[in-house]
């Protein structure tokens, strides 16, 4: 990074990475800190995620202006021009005001100089100290000098100074003198910081704090995060699902939900939200790995499958994969006679006690109740992500982090802090000339001298056709060595560089530096791992190997060209469709950054469901958004209007609006946010056979009438999941449980003697809303669970409304005569057919707009430049819709805040002269990045949408489309060289 940071992000987990990337993509300089010696937080320990059992972590990376970042699996780390990552660093104090803060941090000594360590692992080989492997939940061992995360690149070691005995063996073998055991912590001061994002996470509950689970005593009781490690190939057992005690595959595994959650006795009156889904996922993986006859049992109280696609995931696990779900919170885990096995007692659905024996138990742990926010958390200018106070799944964390980025960006722009326009280093004139390769042989402080000399590498290299200069350096890790290379590149004729040195990943930062100084693009530089090749003793023809590798890379470099870059000017106007809380938040987020917003609302008035909202807090929140939007000079409202057409590509769209009176308007815009919302689902007419039977929404409205007299409402029954969570509407509507609780409590307030019964399937009071459930019970409301197939029945007998159900706790039928029966009918999206076809975005089977990736790109659609938020995407609470709106606004801002977007070096381009216009490339493009320009009669590539995957180039039979940096001729030459 060439300028000092103006934003600090504390915590380099999912939220921190998302937020840092958001702000970096806007052009801010960000410093991303983590107290751990590796970045990634818990992400690095998860291989696959629900509800699709895929990974996809890389989808968080920037999708345009990709040259600013390294395109590698995010597990390896994050590398972006505008982000500086500082590990083993903890903030201790914050001073000053937003816009001008001073932050003090301590960087712990890791014992290894990251600038010198080349990741050769010599130190690790000789270290005599073994300690439990913290990365693998202590299920294996590691050395005191170690790699914090195995995929981490550069793979530089750190020393666990608490375990280190200072024997000095590592110091002796380090070829680059990178180890210094006497280093002390360093205090870092960051000045002129505009704002700070606090994304330090919630920590994980440690079940050893409770005596009932036997964690720490019984080896086969593991936490869910340990189970993730056991499943992982990079885990303690190389991906074999075996239990710790005897390394045998378990046949019966129990998952225990709510360990450390939903337990006011330990200060945990909250739900950790993600654990239910994690357990289902783990059970599915256990079945996949060990065979379908593996018994998997999940002990739960409520399966909180509240995400849009989660209920179907659970149903599938239960019906198709035979995962057993037992609704009972277990008391404790006890050892069984058989070695290592575990006895778990529970009561079944009918209340009968069962003593079961399992081979292994997984404790579904969530948020750590003991984790406290740092003292400075409340300091003005610090904005915390929700994931600091709540444990949440990846998708929610990502939305929340982007919401925070939006708030921070707004804070900075109101403080007058704008991202610095980045001057891209000009390319050297030499680059356009014919290829001339500089080979740099690094002897790694003499340790590779022997290889280089014995094999006469310099002489051999001369045989490679093309212009080649060769130099030998003592060490390019040293400033001196690197300066030597710079000198030669600046003054010599070479316009391409090939290093024969060590690990390419270690080298990459140096290549960037070199590129900045010399004007030779980093794509024109490459590294061959000479050290790695030399160490591989299996080779019987070392010279052949080395020369193969060098010639492969040389050939590629010789044939590299600067990709002709299309620069797309950006239409700095946003189109927002829908004016509910999501749409308004998106519009305001953009307007706050000086982007013109055209807000289109199908209805006569803005505010979405505002008229139907009775919760005072939410009313105030939305009311405020409405007022702000109405008054905002940059927001133009079009009510009674629909978008009937949209064409173009990200940055340059043309939309056609039609007013109800038929008048049409054209809007030029650069990005659109779809926030078409949704509303209450209607109840089937036959359910409303008596006027005492009403929808939950109607009861809420009734109780919120001014001067309501509830004295005659003495018995009320709430029934949850009417029409929801079963086909065809097999998703949780997310708002009903909380709404029923709030309505019931309101009723208790109005008439304390009122008897209230809630029939529910699973109370979906995720996160902090669990407290409402606790409060409602404390107020004497009775909750009766039922299963989908045993719904309570409503009967009308001579004017009396009776609800007949079954109480599994008492194991007896219940029959309640009710003054009101409130049916929770749930939410449905507004029709999206028109908007989906207009914007060419996909929809889900339930009629929501399909996002690009529910975890990593939750508010993007499959089309770059089109975003989605709120109820249009899936059921959400109003406050969540606001977050999504902000996040969507911020995603759109990445495009709209720029004047132009250049294509990445590594994008597709078309050689029109030989293109046959067969359009196969258009058919296979996964990002809709290609189209025919009808005027030119040419295939065009949208540089914003193109990700450089190269499917088009492989599909094109004659090389009319090529991928920058991966041109076919270069690859062909590389293959030829590889085979010598």
């Amino acid at each position, binding site marked *: 990074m060439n300028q000092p940071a103006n934003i600090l992000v504390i915590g380099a987990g999912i939220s921190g990475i998302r937020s840092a990337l958001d702000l970096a993509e806007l052009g801010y300089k960000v410093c991303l800190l983590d107290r751990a010696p590796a970045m990634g937080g818990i992400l690095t320990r998860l*291989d696959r995620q629900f509800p*699709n*059992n*895929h*990974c*996809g*972590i*890389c*989808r968080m990376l920037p999708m345009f202006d990709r040259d600013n970042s390294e*395109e*590698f*699996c995010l*597990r*390896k780390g994050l590398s972006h021009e505008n982000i500086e990552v500082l590990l083993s660093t903890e903030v201790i104090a914050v001073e000053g005001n937003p816009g001008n803060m001073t932050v003090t941090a301590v960087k712990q000594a890791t014992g290894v100089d990251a600038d010198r360590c080349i*990741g050769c*692992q010599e130190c690790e080989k000789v270290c005599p100290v073994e300690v439990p492997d913290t990365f693998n939940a202590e299920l294996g061992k590691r050395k005191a000098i170690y*790699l914090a995360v*195995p*995929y981490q*690149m550069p*793979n530089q070691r750190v020393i666990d100074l608490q375990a280190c005995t200072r024997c000095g063996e590592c110091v002796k073998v380090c070829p680059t003198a990178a180890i210094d055991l006497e280093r002390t912590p360093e205090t870092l001061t960051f000045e002129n910081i505009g704002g700070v994002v606090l994304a330090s996470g919630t920590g994980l509950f440690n079940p050893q704090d409770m005596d009932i689970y036997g964690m720490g005593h019984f080896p086969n009781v593991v936490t869910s995060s340990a189970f993730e490690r056991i499943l*992982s*190939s*990079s885990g303690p057992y190389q*991906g074999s699902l075996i239990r710790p005690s005897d390394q045998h595959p378990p046949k019966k595994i129990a998952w225990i939900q709510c360990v450390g959650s939903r337990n006011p006795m330990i200060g945990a009156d909250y739900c950790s939200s993600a654990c239910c889904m994690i357990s289902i996922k783990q059970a599915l993986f256990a079945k996949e790995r060990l065979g379908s006859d593996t018994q998997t049992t999940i002990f739960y109280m409520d399966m909180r499958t509240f995400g849009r696609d989660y209920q179907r995931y659970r149903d599938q696990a239960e019906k198709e994969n035979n995962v057993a779900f037992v609704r009972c919170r277990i008391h404790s885990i006890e050892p069984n006679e058989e070695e290592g096995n575990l006895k778990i007692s529970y009561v079944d659905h009918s209340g009968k006690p069962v003593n079961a024996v399992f081979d292994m138990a997984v404790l579904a742990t969530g948020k750590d109740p003991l984790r406290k926010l740092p003292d400075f958390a409340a300091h003005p200018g610090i904005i915390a992500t929700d994931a600091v106070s709540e444990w949440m799944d990846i998708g929610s964390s990502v939305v929340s982090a982007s919401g925070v980025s939006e708030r921070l960006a707004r804070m900075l722009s109101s403080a007058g802090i704008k991202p610095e326009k980045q001057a891209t280093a000009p390319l050297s004139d030499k680059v356009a000339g014919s290829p001339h390769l500089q080979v740099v042989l690094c002897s790694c402080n003499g340790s590779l001298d022997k290889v280089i000399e014995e094999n006469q590498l310099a002489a051999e290299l001369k045989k490679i056709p093309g212009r080649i200069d060769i130099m030998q350096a003592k060490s390019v890790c040293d400033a001196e060595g690197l300066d030597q290379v710079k000198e030669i590149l600046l003054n010599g004729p070479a316009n391409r560089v090939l290093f024969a040195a060590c690990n390419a*990943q270690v080298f990459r930062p140096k290549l960037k530096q070199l590129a900045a100084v010399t004007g030779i693009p980093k794509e024109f530089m490459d590294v061959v791992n000479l050290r*790695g*090749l030399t160490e*591989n003793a*299996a*080779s*019987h*023809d070392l010279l052949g*190997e080395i020369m*193969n*590798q060098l010639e*492969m890379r040389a050939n590629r470099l010789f044939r590299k060209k600067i990709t002709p870059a299309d620069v797309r000017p950006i239409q700095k106007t946003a189109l927002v469709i829908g004016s509910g809380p999501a749409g308004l938040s998106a519009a305001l987020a953009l307007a706050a950054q000086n982007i013109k917003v055209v807000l289109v609302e199908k209805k006569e008035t803005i505010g979405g469901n505002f008229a139907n909202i009775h919760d005072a807090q939410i009313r105030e929140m939305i009311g405020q958004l409405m007022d702000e939007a109405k008054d905002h000079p940059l927001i133009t409202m079009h009510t009674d209007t629909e978008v009937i057409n949209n064409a173009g590509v990200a940055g340059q769209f043309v939309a056609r609006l039609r007013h109800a009176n038929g008048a049409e308007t054209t809007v030029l815009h650069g990005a659109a946010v779809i926030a078409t919302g949704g509303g209450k689902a209607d109840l089937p007419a036959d359910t409303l056979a008596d006027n005492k039977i009403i929808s939950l929404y109607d009861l809420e409205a009734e109780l919120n009438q001014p001067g309501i007299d509830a004295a005659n409402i003495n018995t009320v029954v709430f029934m949850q999941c009417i029409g929801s969570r079963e086909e065809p509407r097999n998703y949780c509507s997310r708002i009903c449980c909380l709404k029923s609780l709030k309505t019931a409590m309101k009723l208790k307030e109005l008439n304390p003697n009122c008897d209230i019964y809630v029939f529910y399937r699973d109370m979906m009071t995720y996160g902090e809303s669990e407290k409402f459930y606790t409060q409602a019970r404390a107020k004497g409301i009775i909750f009766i669970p039922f299963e989908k197939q045993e719904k309570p029945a409503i009967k009308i007998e001579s004017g009396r409304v009776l609800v007949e159900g079954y109480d599994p706790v008492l194991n007896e039928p219940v029959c309640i005569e009710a003054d009101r029966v409130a049916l929770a009918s749930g939410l449905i999206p507004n029709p999206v057919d028109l908007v989906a076809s207009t914007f060419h975005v996909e929809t889900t089977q339930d009629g929501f707009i399909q996002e690009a990736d529910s975890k990593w790109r939750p508010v993007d659609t499959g089309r770059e430049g089109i975003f989605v938020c709120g109820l249009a995407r899936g059921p959400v609470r109003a406050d969540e819709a606001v977050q999504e709106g902000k996040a969507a606004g911020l995603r759109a801002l990445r495009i709209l805040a720029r004047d132009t977007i250049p294509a990445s070096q*590594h994008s597709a381009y078309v050689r029109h002269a030989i293109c046959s216009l067969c359009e196969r490339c258009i058919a*296979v493009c*996964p*990002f809709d990045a290609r189209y025919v320009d009808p005027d030119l009669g040419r295939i065009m590539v949208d540089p914003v949408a193109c*990700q*450089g*995957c*190269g*499917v088009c*180039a*492989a*599909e094109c039979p004659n090389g009319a489309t090529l*991928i920058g940096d*991966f041109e*076919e001729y270069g*690859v*062909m030459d*590389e*293959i*030829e060289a*590889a*085979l*010598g």
Partner: protein
Amino acid sequence: MVKSMSDFQPKIIALVCNWCTYTAADLAGTSRLSYPANIRMIRMMCTGMIDPKYILKAFLDGADGVFIGGCHPGDCHYINGNLKFKKRMAGMEAIIKQFGFDENRLRLRWIGASEGPEFQHNMTDFIQTIQDMGPSPAQGIMVL
């Protein structure tokens, strides 16, 4: 120029996806999971980028085997490039088979980013397979 089986060192081209398999290869490296060195790894951004020409070029230039490693279905950074390649692969198998290259000399496997051991295992296994089959019929023939 037939070599005896014992000193047959197969030449193998591995075309691997930048995101998953390449990460797994690196992980195998940092985890000291060694595999025979005679694999020439070429990083592709995606298996979907692999042109049939690359496979033909490799075989005709004397490769004893071509290994292709991509992301597990659903994990592709580019949504489904891996499945697009898989489709192309079927035709390629038919072609190379007809011209006397055992179909098993061309292998496609999904290897996820964290699957360092799988990478090692796949490499070792593929080399073994190729060693068992012996040198490519194109070895030593001037085919280009």
